[in-house]
């Protein structure tokens, strides 16, 4: 199986990843190799098999719910401390709305 450079650019767009031309070329061949290997799964008939999304163990339906009570949360200053650009208690991003 081969992934074309056009497909690589399309997927990179979905993933918001800027790739160099060299990366596009490299991923085109590497992803193809790995996806070909993954196609081995098609040898198995899984029509009657339930998908496994999580490892499950026995617990009551509401076991993971806690009491709906107030508790301390991070204050805004601590939450914003790692922001590359912040101000006035907010994250700052490039302009998204044109006037």
């Amino acid at each position, binding site marked *: 199986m081969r992934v074309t450079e056009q497909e690589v650019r399309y997927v990179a767009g*979905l993933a918001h990843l800027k790739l160099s031309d060299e990366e596009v070329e490299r991923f085109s061949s590497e992803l193809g190799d790995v996806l070909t290997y993954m196609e081995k*799964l098609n040898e198995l008939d899984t029509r009657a098999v339930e998908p496994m999304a999580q490892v499950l163990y026995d617990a009551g339906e509401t076991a993971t719910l806690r009491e709906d009570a107030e508790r301390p949360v991070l204050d805004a200053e601590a939450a914003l401390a790692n922001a590359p650009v912040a101000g006035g208690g907010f994250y700052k991003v490039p302009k998204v709305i044109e006037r």
Partner: protein
Amino acid sequence: MEVASLTVDRIREGLAARAFSAVELATEALRFAEAENAKTNAYLHFCPERALEAARRVDEKLARGQDGGALAGVPVAVKDVICTRGVRTTCGSRLLASYVPPYDATAVMRLEQAGAVVLGKANCDEFAMGSSNENSAFGPVRNPVAPERVPGGSSGGPAAAVAQGTAVLALGSDTGGSIRQPASFCGVVGVTPTYGRVSRYGLVAFASSLDHIGPFARSVRDTARLLGVIAGRDEMDSTSAFAPVPGYAAALDGRARGVKVGLPREYFDGLASETGDLIARGVDALRRLGCGVREISLPHTPYAVGCYYIICTAEASSNLARYDGVRYTMRAPGGETLIDMYRSTRGEGFGAECKRRIMLGTYVLSSGYYDAYYLKAQKVRTLIARDFAEAFRQVDAIVTPVSPFPAFRLGEKLDNPLEMYLSDIYTITGSLAGIPCMSVPCGRTVAGLPVGMQILTNHFDETGMFRLADAFERAGGADG
């Protein structure tokens, strides 16, 4: 004080006898670890203030005649994907090079409550993606046993620190083998507990249905002690299990008579190598301990690598979406629009393997491919889990190699991602099933490279796994 060979017991005895204080031990452990680190790059950074503060608390408790805790004064390395309040947590990534978490992971909090002393943060593959530790943005780790070779990955730093003696215990994380494979390569003990046994609150997410936190140590007993401290329900992680935590270390009596051990034929077919010979010797030692050994079958094993790399990349592409230049420290300059800024930040911030996995995961989740890849893989995962459920109706424990080969040379597999992925072939099945699994040292090759034996037991039977490993270790391992 010989810090490189300390055990939890010897530290407790030393503190009780006033041979040294916790602060003296922490000071010497930090000095030694910092001096030795150039040989391996096992630690990314140290946190001496935090370590000395933790040690001071232990000394104060002891001075008041109180119990210092189950791990009083014990120096620990913490993999740098596990959050430490006020101490940088980089995930081995350029993107998080200056990230300072505002909270502690539950596992770290429990460690310190038990008196442990966190010396620093250990190196790893970027976002725990890799099998060699060569994907760290801050340089590879060298194997302390053979410096021209890799320590394994992704928890290469924690494994190397414990092997080198610059930590007595370490916390790692395992998604498809990231604790067991480096433990095997470095000749130490490493455990991936049952899925949900240890809270992941504060573990930076890679593949949420597969991520685990687990312990490293130089002995089965110390590994069991560490797991006993960090295991148990945590309301901050809704996937953490309610099952009570038994006394793992107290159950170790060196006996393995009558334990039914299964050898899955799919793991041994075509394993004609020094690794295979050493595991065979290990199995002979188990027989001499009185274990009943029989062949079993886990028929869906050949599908595990494909299944795993679909599920883990899909989940990773989703989990890593949050690193977009808004909240987490790094933003690439020059993005005119919001989307440009996202794309440049992620393109510059992530290393090659992270990009590869984000691309694979986005591809298998993209419109038109979801059923063919992701849903298919989830169904195959059911079949793999059923294989184990069936096997545990016949045997108490399953024994396999951890890796098809011992530590390879730095650079040897870097240019071939598929070959690197295939090195996880024996560890990812247990991860997919969510069962406890561990690596215990099983001799060395002629060249002196450690080989690990993997022991797997049923969900929440960590006790059975530790008992078998402890009996094996006490009997002398593969040479017993």
